[in-house]
């Protein structure tokens, strides 16, 4: 009964969308997510992580996941058995997109499938699917240069 493990509201805690700058060039946009649980996890427990912008799924190869000062490809997450995601730490998801967040963009949806690694009671591990939604607004924060 996965109804008893529900912290999805934590995923987007105080998060905003920012454009990503290198010098004066905008090469993408980024936002923060938290791990939706009462405890931290290892990135190897993330089985799937998808992002939709206004309903359209972002190419996984255009996404980067940054945590603990390191940047990962989404495809690498399952291999990161020593990368701990502390429950108060924010991971940054960057979407590589020339010019940044498209004008008029409204909503970002994240879906994360994650294994709960200690739930080996009587068999398989519990795997949850968490959802989070972020309204883009027009409050796109600018980077410090």
């Amino acid at each position, binding site marked *: 009964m996965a*109804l008893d493990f529900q912290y999805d509201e*934590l995923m987007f805690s105080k998060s905003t969308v920012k454009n990503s700058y290198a010098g004066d060039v905008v090469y993408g946009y980024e936002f923060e997510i938290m791990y939706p649980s009462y405890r931290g996890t290892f990135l190897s427990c993330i089985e799937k992580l998808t992002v939709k912008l206004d309903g359209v799924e972002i190419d996984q190869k255009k996404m980067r996941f940054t945590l603990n000062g390191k940047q990962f490809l989404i495809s690498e997450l399952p291999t990161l058995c020593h990368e701990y995601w502390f429950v108060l730490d924010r991971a940054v998801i960057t979407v590589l997109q020339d010019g940044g967040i498209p004008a008029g963009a409204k909503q970002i949806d994240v879906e994360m499938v994650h294994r709960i*690694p200690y739930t*080996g*009671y009587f068999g398989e591990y519990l795997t949850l699917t968490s959802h989070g939604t972020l309204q883009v607004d027009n409050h796109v924060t600018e980077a410090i240069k």
Partner: protein
Amino acid sequence: MKKMNEKIELGVSLYSLTSEFVTEKMGLEDCLRAVAEMGFKGIEIVAAQTVPEYPNPSDKWLFEFRDLLAKYDLKPVCYSAYIDNGLRPDRDLNHDEIVQFTYNDMLYAKKAGFSMIRTQHSISPQILEEMVPACEKLDIMLTIEMHHPHHPRVEVWEKYIELMNKYEHLGVVPDFSIFQRKPHRLLVERLVRAGFREDKLNSVLEYHEKGIPCENAIGELSLNAEEAQFTRDLYEKFNPTPLDDLKTLIPITPYIHGKFYILDNGEFDPCIPYDKILPMIQDLGYKGYIAAEYEGHHFDMSVDARQQLRYYASIFNKYIN
């Protein structure tokens, strides 16, 4: 008997304050100050929640934490560890990794002043016994939590219980979720939000309470497929082990998880029979901490956990001492 204290005393797992902690309404020191003010004496931390550097807290963190506990006159009772057996996508943790995690957690616990770690049943009887010399050398109790849906007749537990009777430094931490007899209010509310028609659900809960079999409920109450599945889950989950198991457990119990989900007052838990449990463990001679372990945040993060802890302390005081 695993006598960890002169009497039964009330502790708290900081896990109870999950909602306040993970939403950053309360920092670690705020949590400690709050529980000290409420009268809790002993502290448990869930390292994977509390320690930013998990799984390898630095000496700096551990010593600062130890000093923080001293500042609020709180006793470090239990350092809660995990066996994150499913950490890797390709295989379970292997022997050496489980030993490494467990031994490290014992070292970290010792450094921060704890004399006990609580681990999980997937440690395996072999590794549990293998750790005994380290337990003795460090003088650290190594305990396994018995949590719902486990009970003393689960096969692996029969072996654990044997080892816990044999070795002074091994023990069980019963989590009183094993005695939960019906779903708590927050779960009921969640089921309703998930689409279980309220009147149907109430009828199911009546059937369950009266001991009418699950298939009767499903057959007689015109449930839809989803409701029927929830009903099966409810019957499976709320099938508590007998309180008599305490007679097996208490002699090997150095510490208890006083699990609760939601309390409406400081008198009575409708879900877990503390009115029977607390007198019984006293009669059985238990001497140690019971950690208030509030878990309602799993279902509703807006509940005031401090109020819940006060209610729990009140129930505890009603029966103990």
